[in-house]
């Protein structure tokens, strides 16, 4: 074990939003097979990762699920370079058996529905879901009905749906795809909520690590984008 | 069998160690377990109280079988209605003395008078609102005694209830225990090393040694035999005489023992007026009648207070009261020939050289 795993030569520490862990691991394996730099992935919530960067923790690359946190570290001078890398869709999911018979967002107000799960108010998925429902004119009634349950993050929200504890939930398409036991019944219109953006950041510490620059570039390469797309993300156009 | 208060016949072993294997029966009244330290007295009480389970045997109290390993019968300790005074008190440290005393008291039949009586008897008046940690050793012992008495037991088991108390208090409590026994008829079984207590209290004595009953019977005879036994197995008593008014007289010192002249040998600190002299019982001879001319210089006249034949040993130990008590060892035949008996006046002859000045 080294003092500073991120800066060992040829090693790149990628701080990744938990939901991107699997796809990044696949890319890391690919890179290693080619004899490229070794990507070490430390996955956690976007906020925890940002706090770590703010505290000066080693970390060359930050793939965040929350642009607000990216703004925050940029303001603090920790971001050397930022690109919006990925996008995602919000979907309405229901448990496999769908006993409340939810087919579209409007059904969320039906009497059959006891609980609806959303991600937390402060995480992007929660914020956006709220805005999407507002755009559909459902939010005020729904939130007044007391049937909204906030899972902390998307994964937890999804777990409620998977277990059938709630009758429906709103999550990212990528997460829904990773949970075989839930059914996607509706994909929200992208116009109804701000675009979901996963920014990719090269930190100031990463700037001094030549291998990090290579990884930073690799993650934006068409090859990487194709793999991201396979996992359900929308690769965003390079600026 | 049915007239016995308690019949005890048990075997019990601590792990691989000490084994108690004893059988005895107690008549109603006050009985004492007597025996040297470590002979199994407390173990007996624990077995009777149900705090230990015998490996074999049975214990019966009046008509109730408390435990019988043969039939598997077992009365748990809280149903035995036995009051126990533990050797180390075991007062409840978190309760006031008042609550300690009242713990075993069936509340229905009491409006404070029994508590008040016991408090009065044991002189615990000012202590009721204190905690056990704030009492002296003797006070704790008295509380333990009171607590057991107040639980209205069918049999009171007391492990050295009076040690550590001053004589006045001891006498007073003895008196009250006697009274309690007479008035309420509470039978008692107590452990004591104190012959005064035993002789005063007990009707029946059971003598334990190394886990076995070596003797039992009415108190006085049994205790006399017990003393004998101890002396037979033990180096025996050593006389320690107090000599007062010591002064120089020619080439030696002399002093006074209970009014009688006593010659001393050996060096003596110049300013001592009182010294102690040690001599062995076998170095003392006895004489009846007038003192003849004899080389033994010290003649102390006294009355025989006690006479103990040591069985199988053809010896006897004679206690002569010359103002102080002197133990003398004589042969059985000498004893017969001189007609020694309790109350006979004799003269003790002690060679000054056989004595040992202590200080």
């Amino acid at each position: 074990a080294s003092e500073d795993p991120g800066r060992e030569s040829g090693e790149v520490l990628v701080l990744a939003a938990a939901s991107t862990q699997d796809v990044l691991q696949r890319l890391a394996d690919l890179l290693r097979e080619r004899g490229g730099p070794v990507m070490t992935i430390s996955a956690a919530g976007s906020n925890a990762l940002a706090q770590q960067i703010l505290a000066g923790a080693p970390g060359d690359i930050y793939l965040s699920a929350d642009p607000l946190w990216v703004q925050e570290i940029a303001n603090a001078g920790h971001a050397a370079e930022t690109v919006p890398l990925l996008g995602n869709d919000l979907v309405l999911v229901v448990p496999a058996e769908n006993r409340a018979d939810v087919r579209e967002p409007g059904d969320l107000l039906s009497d059959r529905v006891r609980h609806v799960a959303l991600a937390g108010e402060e995480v992007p998925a929660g914020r956006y879901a709220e805005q999407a429902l507002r755009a559909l004119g459902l939010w005020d009634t729904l939130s007044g009905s007391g049937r909204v349950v906030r899972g902390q993050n998307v994964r937890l929200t999804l777990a409620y749906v998977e277990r059938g504890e709630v009758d429906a939930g709103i999550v990212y398409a990528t997460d829904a795809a990773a949970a075989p036991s839930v059914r996607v019944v509706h994909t929200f219109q992208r116009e109804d909520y701000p675009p979901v953006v996963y920014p990719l950041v090269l930190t100031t510490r990463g700037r001094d690590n030549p291998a990090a620059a290579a990884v930073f570039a690799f993650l934006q390469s068409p090859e990487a984008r194709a793999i991201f797309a396979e996992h359900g993300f929308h690769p965003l156009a390079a600026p | 069998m049915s007239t016995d208060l308690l019949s005890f016949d048990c075997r019990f072993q601590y792990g691989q160690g000490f084994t108690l294997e004893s059988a005895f029966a107690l008549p109603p009244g006050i009985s004492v377990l007597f025996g040297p330290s470590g002979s199994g007295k407390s173990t007996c009480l624990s077995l009777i109280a149900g705090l230990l389970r015998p490996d074999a045997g049975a214990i019966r109290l009046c008509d109730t079988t408390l435990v019988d390993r043969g039939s598997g019968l077992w009365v748990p300790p809280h149903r035995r209605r036995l009051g126990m005074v533990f050797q180390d008190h075991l007062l409840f440290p978190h309760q006031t003395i008042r609550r300690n005393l009242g713990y075993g008291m069936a509340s229905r039949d009491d409006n404070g008078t029994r508590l008040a009586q016991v408090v009065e008897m044991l002189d615990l008046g000012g202590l009721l609102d204190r905690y056990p940690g704030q009492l002296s050793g003797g006070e704790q012992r008295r509380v333990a005694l009171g607590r057991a008495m107040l639980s209205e037991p069918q049999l009171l088991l007391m492990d050295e209830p009076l040690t550590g108390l001053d004589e006045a208090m001891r006498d007073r409590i003895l008196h009250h225990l006697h009274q309690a026994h007479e008035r309420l008829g509470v039978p008692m079984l107590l452990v004591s090393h104190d012959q005064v207590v035993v002789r005063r209290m007990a009707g029946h004595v059971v003598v334990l040694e190394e886990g076995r009953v070596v003797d039992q019977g009415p108190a006085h005879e049994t205790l006399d035999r017990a003393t004998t036994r101890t002396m037979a197995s033990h180096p025996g008593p050593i006389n320690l005489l107090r000599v007062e008014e010591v002064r120089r007289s020619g080439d030696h010192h002399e002093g006074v023992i209970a009014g009688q002249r006593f010659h001393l040998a050996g060096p003596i600190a110049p300013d001592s007026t009182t010294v102690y002299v040690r001599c062995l019982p076998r170095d003392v001879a006895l004489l009846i009648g007038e003192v003849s001319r004899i080389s033994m210089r010290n003649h102390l006249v006294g009355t025989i207070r006690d006479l103990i034949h040591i069985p199988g040993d053809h010896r006897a130990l004679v206690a002569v009261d010359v103002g102080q008590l002197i133990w003398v060892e004589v042969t059985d035949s000498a004893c017969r020939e001189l007609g020694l008996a309790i109350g006979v006046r004799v003269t003790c002859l002690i060679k000054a050289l056989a004595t040992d000045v202590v200080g």
Partner: protein
Amino acid sequence: MTGWWLTPPEWQAIRLSLLVAFWAVVIFLPPATVLGWWLARRDFWGKTAVDTVLNLPLVLPPVVTGYLLLVMLGRQGVIGRPLDQWLGVEIVFTWRAAALASGVIAFPLMVRAIRVAMLGLDTRLEQAALTLGAHPVRVFFTITLPLARHGLIAGGVLGFARSIGEFGATIMIAGSIPGETRTMPLYIFGIMESPNGIARAQGMVIVSILIAAGALIVGQVIENRSHRQAGGPKR
């Protein structure tokens, strides 16, 4: 410190946390006492198994514990389904679920504290009580428990504090519903997701600290009162 004047949702979270922690202790301390006593006194076959199961909430990440509770108590769960179908009682997503989660997580701590106290206890005092004719149940309540009071107090304080801080299992089984299950940790955790969250959480963190101090003071006061009894240098 922007959030010194607490907002209504914050007050709600505080009230809820206190409620949840209170019930977690009230419900779980009695069985913890019995179990602590049992584990301290008895040696039986399968003791380690019991001990292991009871300590699982300590070794497993709280989210896993929460997940296991969800599996058992959820609408589809072995316990939750009959409750839901026969009694119409729903536990998941209620404050009762939060109390349950907190209690389960704090349970091994309570048991341990009580067990330690029971182990330090002189069992001969209980024997003495038995010889005074007290039924074993009375002995337990009048001798054993008071003598193990340090453990009970510690169990209560630990359990309460742990409940006040419990996050992982609670969010799993109770969700984060404002006013119903959003306790202080859930509230804090929630706003810490946003970049200005730390500043907004400060008020709540301070309240947490004050509550902890309050609980500790209460524990200390009870302890001191009972300690005075021990008296001077004698036992």
